[in-house]
């Protein structure tokens, strides 16, 4: 279906909630600040007025209990969406998420379901620091019984949210703060993006870049420049981390012979490890070169922008890996890096775009 309409990631999420709540009275949103004037970075703007404060429900500061409350309410036909303004806060609720929600259906022999969505925002930039900028998707993705999604474009932001709300299982929906301002085509009305597979964000034949969340943006930046310098990268937006379906990655690697993973979390025991391991197990002989992983540096996020260079993976780092794999000449590599830097201009390192001025 051709669809010209463009929305921001923020507006796409908002539209998903509007539709979900209109379609099903059982759906309600809960969390700290969901009904306040900032409306969770505007993703819920106008919804308290439209649906009432009992369906966009402020909560006390009580992450663990609120998760259990959502799960309890879900037993009687409600479909709660719990929101935390930072994934870091969800660490207070892993008992209810991992011990209870993830196992609910299984451990009661299938008689119960756990249709809850937990929406978690990954912070970055403007000095957020160690406790407001973690990207903890690996922790969730490791746990059977959960589903874990990370949209990277507005279309998926909406489609995966609608799918998550419709799903009868607990879905962890991780959204990156730096995606909120991005724009892209978004179909009107209700549609579900299946919680099943990666998305081919850009087709190419020379190297496979499997990325998550905001790193898809970096990967696409890299791929555009690489294209100019004669190397066609295929960018896969992993999008669904659990259940992870590696088939599309494997298919791509069979074509390209080269694999680079780039994700927003820490590398050790991270998303890239699973992707690389799955490919190594299932498509070993397709790999022409050792695979490479890019991830956030293996330490807590520092606050000062002076300490940020080198912390997050970038398009430039991706191009560096492509070069190391022997897929670019030295000249092409130098040219690609120069082009990237020119494109970036003088944008400070701690914001995604000039409009982002903190404080959160």
């Amino acid at each position, binding site marked *: 279906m051709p669809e010209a309409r463009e929305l921001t990631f923020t507006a796409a999420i908002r539209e998903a909630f509007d539709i979900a709540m209109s379609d099903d009275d059982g759906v*309600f949103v809960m969390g700290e600040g969901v009904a306040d004037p900032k409306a969770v970075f505007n993703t819920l703007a106008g919804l308290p007025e439209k649906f009432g404060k*009992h369906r966009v429900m402020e*909560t*006390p500061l*009580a992450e*663990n*209990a*609120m*998760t*259990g*409350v*959502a*799960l*309890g*309410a*879900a*037993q*009687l*036909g*409600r479909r709660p969406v719990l929101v935390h303004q930072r994934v870091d806060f969800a660490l207070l609720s892993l*008992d*209810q998420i991992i*011990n*209870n929600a993830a196992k609910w*259906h*299984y*451990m*009661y*022999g*299938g*008689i*119960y*379901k*756990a*249709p809850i969505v937990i929406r978690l925002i990954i912070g970055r930039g403007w000095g957020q620091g160690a406790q407001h900028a973690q990207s903890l998707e690996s922790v969730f993705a490791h746990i*059977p*019984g959960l*589903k874990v999604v990370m949209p990277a474009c507005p279309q998926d932001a909406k489609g995966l949210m609608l799918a998550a709300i419709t799903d*009868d*299982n607990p879905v962890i929906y991780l959204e990156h703060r730096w995606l909120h301002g991005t724009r892209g085509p978004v179909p009107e009305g209700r549609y579900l993006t299946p919680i099943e597979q990666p998305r081919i964000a850009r087709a190419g034949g020379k190297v496979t870049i499997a990325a998550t969340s905001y790193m898809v943006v970096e990967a696409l930046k890299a791929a555009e420049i690489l294209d100019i310098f004669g190397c066609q990268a295929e960018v896969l937006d992993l999008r669904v981390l659990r259940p992870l379906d590696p088939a599309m990655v494997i298919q791509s690697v069979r074509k390209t012979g080269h694999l680079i993973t780039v994700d927003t979390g820490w590398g050790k025991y991270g998303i890239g490890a699973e992707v690389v391991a799955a490919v190594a197990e299932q498509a070993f002989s397709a790999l022409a070169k050792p695979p490479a992983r890019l991830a956030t540096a293996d330490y807590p996020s520092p606050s000062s922008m002076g300490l940020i260079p080198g912390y997050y993976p970038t398009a430039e780092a991706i191009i560096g890996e492509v070069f190391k794999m022997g897929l670019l000449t030295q000249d092409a590599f130098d040219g690609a890096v120069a082009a990237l830097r020119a494109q970036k201009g003088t944008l400070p390192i701690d914001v995604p775009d000039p409009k982002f001025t903190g404080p959160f």
Partner: protein
Amino acid sequence: MTEIASNDLRALFRDVLRIRMVEEAIAERYAEQEMRCPVHLSIGQEAAAVGVCAALDKDDLVVSGHRSHAHYLAKGGDLKKMIAELYGRATGCTGGRGGSMHLVDPACGFQCALPIVGGSIPIGVGLALALKQAQRPQVVGIFVGDATIEEGVFHESANFAAVHRLPVVFVCENNLYSVYTHLSDRQPDRPLADLARGHGMPVWRGDGNDLGQVLAQSREAVAHARAGQGPVFLEFTTYRWREHCGPNYDNHIGYRTEEEFQSWVPKDPMAQLAAKLRAAGQLTAADEERLRGELAAEIAAAFAFAKASPYPDAATAGDKIYA
């Protein structure tokens, strides 16, 4: 406090005796090593379970923790499915998935039991939220122990229930111990129920071994919660007779004295109730014998059912991971 008619109590004696006999049967057979999961017995604590559940309506809901047999049975849970679950059989209430610490019987409103201490509290509050959102008249009973309320999640849940005036009845069975650690090593010297008062809840405190008192106080508390006046808190003092987990007596191992235990024996909720009923002429020796006979038969049948039931098929272990 409401007076409880002694014929009400008579009906409840059966429930107390039944739970006692079920748990004694479990204790007796546990050494056979066929119930291969942890068991937390409520022997000595039955009155709280029975009194509270008697004050609840059939379609009210209940959640519990690790020590849930009595709550499950008092609320009307299926005995056969419970015993089969302890035996790990396909006919158990979760088909062997959960074991003794995850009893469940939605048919009677026994919504769930969970062994992570405090883990079922917010579940119960969430049920109450949904009931209120749907304007349904039920209340939710949440059984906790004296240590359970040390967990932060109790307070988070209590506060939420209070601010939303949810129909929740917190029931704390204060048996003085958390595993082998005495209350005084874990909490300051103040009435435990003050914690609930801090959350603005009305509180009832009673002798958890006196079924009449439990029932009377529970009725008042339940009425309050059902009237939409928000959550309430019941604290019942009682005592666990056997070890924390498992079938044995353990007064010799050193965390409590034989004397302390002996001081609770005369307070046995079952014996007290029986004495009261006998004194009121409501329970003859013959009645009691008949009752015991009936219950023994029912229990024997439940064990037989469990033992005759198949284990779940290992090939199904990977089913129903996702709904």
